[in-house]
């Protein structure tokens, strides 16, 4: 079973040379720490920076330089700043190759819900609706089940949707799943996790084809 850093580490393997990547708040932010150093990658933050670097050293924080999670950041050489309209031109125009974001629920048809729990929590969608509606390659980083042990990998989302039929891959603490043909296709198991355990934790249709390898982390 993976922890949050493990999920981030596994997702980092999906980041390819030459990719522009948008990282959501939470686990996705951690992905930057695990990307191979021998490939060229740039991180975009939708509030208006491309070429985002690590957090600043103490004393070097700048209120005018934050990421989409409002965290202080740095900019790498070759970075650029731009306005919100241009930022979403990059996203909507499919110039960003990979979007990694968290979710409360994912459905087997690729639907995703991550912005609202009616009557309980409404923080808003931020840039998530634009991201999932636009990107061709959307990886969801999440726990396979909620705190009550209920599956978040579903036949159908119960919460208000963020986007429809858009998720391409899900990486959880238990498994790597490809979303295709109205089903979750099991690609990899987390270390020490059996196909049966994954099956049990998955409410949506799970397709298991042949021997399922363990993740290489």
């Amino acid at each position, binding site marked *: 079973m993976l922890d949050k850093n493990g999920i981030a580490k596994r997702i980092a393997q999906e980041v390819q040379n030459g990719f522009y990547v948008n990282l959501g708040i939470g686990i996705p932010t951690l992905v930057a720490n695990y990307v191979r150093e021998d490939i060229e990658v740039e991180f975009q933050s*939708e509030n*208006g920076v491309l070429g985002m670097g690590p957090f600043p050293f103490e004393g070097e924080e700048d*209120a005018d330089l*934050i990421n989409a999670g409002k965290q202080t*950041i740095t900019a790498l050489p070759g970075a650029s700043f731009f306005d*919100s309209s241009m930022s979403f031109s990059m996203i909507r125009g499919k110039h960003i190759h990979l979007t990694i974001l968290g979710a409360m629920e994912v459905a087997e048809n690729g639907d995703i819900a991550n912005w609202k729990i009616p009557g309980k929590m409404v923080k808003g969608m*931020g840039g998530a*609706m*634009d991201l999932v*509606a636009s990107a061709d390659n959307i990886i969801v980083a999440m726990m396979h089940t909620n705190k009550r042990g209920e599956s978040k990998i579903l036949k159908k989302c119960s919460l208000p949707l963020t986007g429809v039929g858009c998720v391409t891959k899900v990486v959880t603490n238990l498994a790597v799943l490809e979303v295709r043909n109205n089903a979750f296709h099991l690609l990899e198991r987390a270390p020490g996790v059996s196909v049966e355990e994954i099956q049990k934790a998955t409410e949506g249709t799970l397709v298991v084809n042949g021997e399922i390898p363990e993740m290489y982390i």
Partner: protein
Amino acid sequence: MINKTVNNVQEALEGVQNAMTLMLGGFGLSGIPENAISELVKRKVTDLTCISNNAGVDDFGLGLLLQQKQIKKMISSYVGENDEFERQMLSGELEVELTPQGTLAEKCRAAQAGFPAFYTPAGYGTEVAEGKETREFDGKMYVLEPAFKADFAFVKAWKGDAAGNLVFKGTARNFNPNMCGAATITVAEVEELVPVGALDPNNIHIPGVFIQRIFQGENYEKRIEQRTIRQRS
């Protein structure tokens, strides 16, 4: 050169009235028009509709207007940093229209640029698209979103000149340029009002034509919302 300078924030906000629709730049607390917000608090204008990506925090930014219950309706993409906001929203005191961030930016830009509406894929198939016109182009579905209509836009820039030309800094740029000229009157406050000619015409982010009033801002706090650092190794 057409001179847009006003002497202070009081002059800059002349004409702001109850029940108006205001645009306010900034993302989180970065690049927010601090002076204009303070003055709105002082003026006690109420029943405002505020278009702003975020709603500030409890005791800063638009949170100050929420405390005073001056806001009737918020149009935002993310409001999750503010307890008073959540209280007012859940109690029904505050009307909230959540709008995807890219859509919010483009609704500003559409107003600035004279586009009545635009088609965006964001929100299709979600409750955001409920009651809205949708349409297929090249096999993909889009939602028709109208341009914003606002009375005042308050933006904050790093540098500006009397002609109204603006330069923003870092990610404090965000929605500010898109709101310039998107309201009947756009008011720019700047950290530094520089002499005309001091800004390189090649590096001006927003030409003065979009600005009606500009003034030298004061006492910027520029609060950091999430101070994150890494250890020196």
